[in-house]
């Protein structure tokens, strides 16, 4: 049985019958987008891995609560959003740069709190420039309100539709549009110097 070709809902059906390989396929399929959005919310790699694990564990241990009328990815992201927001509201997390948390005093801690890029096949200069640009983008995103940040990441990075984002964040469609439009405005204002520096 090729699990890679099965739809999310078929895999969920198999998981409900106790099929662990179906569960592993779902984890493999969604680990990067879930980790990505959690990391960009909490800005700490170790913490993001812990929270992302919790997201999947909660998802699979409560599969009986999943309603197949909705997309599995929407439900998964909804759990990720709720868990992450709950964590953010319990702690006052600092904003960190892509190079690691400001309180990272050892090399190990800096590595643990910095971004993990998937590929480093670019030339070194391009990697440095990309990392600097990414750093400015990530810093600008980190300064957004958490709901603006979630909405714009789901829309522009994960490519989710407005209606799906409304389901994930459990807010009206109009509220999602407001979040995204305001987030765009703030990011454009904060990043306008990049366009000036690079001549466009």
């Amino acid at each position, binding site marked *: 049985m090729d699990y890679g070709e099965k739809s999310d809902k078929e895999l969920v059906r198999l998981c409900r019958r106790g099929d662990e390989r179906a569960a592993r396929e779902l984890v493999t399929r969604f*680990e990067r987008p879930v980790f990505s959005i959690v990391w960009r919310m909490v800005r700490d790699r170790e913490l993001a891995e812990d929270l992302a694990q919790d997201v999947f564990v909660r998802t699979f241990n409560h599969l009986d609560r999943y309603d197949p009328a909705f997309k599995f990815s929407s439900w998964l992201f909804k759990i990720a959003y709720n868990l992450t927001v709950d964590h953010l509201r319990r702690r006052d997390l600092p904003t960190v740069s892509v190079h690691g948390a400001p309180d990272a005093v050892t090399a190990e801690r800096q590595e643990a709190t910095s971004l993990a890029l998937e*590929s480093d096949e670019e030339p070194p200069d391009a990697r440095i420039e990309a990392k600097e640009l990414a750093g400015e983008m*990530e810093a600008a995103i980190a300064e957004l309100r958490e709901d603006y940040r979630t909405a714009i990441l789901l829309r522009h990075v994960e490519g989710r539709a407005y209606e799906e984002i409304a389901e994930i964040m459990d807010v009206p469609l109009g509220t999602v549009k407001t979040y995204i439009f305001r987030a765009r405005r703030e990011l454009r204002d904060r990043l306008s110097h990049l366009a000036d520096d690079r001549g466009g």
Partner: protein
Amino acid sequence: MSDTTREATAHLADEAVERIAFGGKAAPAEGRHLAGCDRCRDEVAGLRGLHARLAVLPPLAPSADFADRVMARVRLPEPRPARALATLRANPRAALAAAASALLAVVGAVTWIVAYPAITPGAVAALLADRGAALAWQGVLAAGRAVYESGIGSLLSAFRADLTPWTAIAGLLTLALVAIGSMGVMLRLMEVTPPFRARSARMTDG
């Protein structure tokens, strides 16, 4: 105010800006407006640039053993046959109720075969196919008459002088309904929850 004037003074809605910025086709009126409105052209260009920057954010990946660590903590439901056996092992009273019901069904079938050896399932099927409902109704009447003449009728007649096969049939049906109801009460007292009740209790989100 004319449509042209309205076009000149009103700017594009946010939805139109997004649609055009992401490659969607501009309506004729939108195209005319963009040609003459610096602000809206800047909005479209700015959104395209922002989207391009967001789209090239580095892809993030968790550690290589992330899936292994997740699976070590996940508890999937057991496969259905194993789950049914586990339920019976965990609830001996449910197993006893199930076994008692099965035994009653077997005893009833054996009693029927012993009491009426000529009436095999094949013979019943043939008769029903031949004479259908009429035979079925005659069978019901015969069962009632048999009960009446078996001695139960005389016993009951001590309580009711006008007992007839009809009242005997009605009495049997009543007894059957009472038995089914009693079984339900017994299961409730033994704290055996029907499956459909357990499922409807879990109506929460993630």
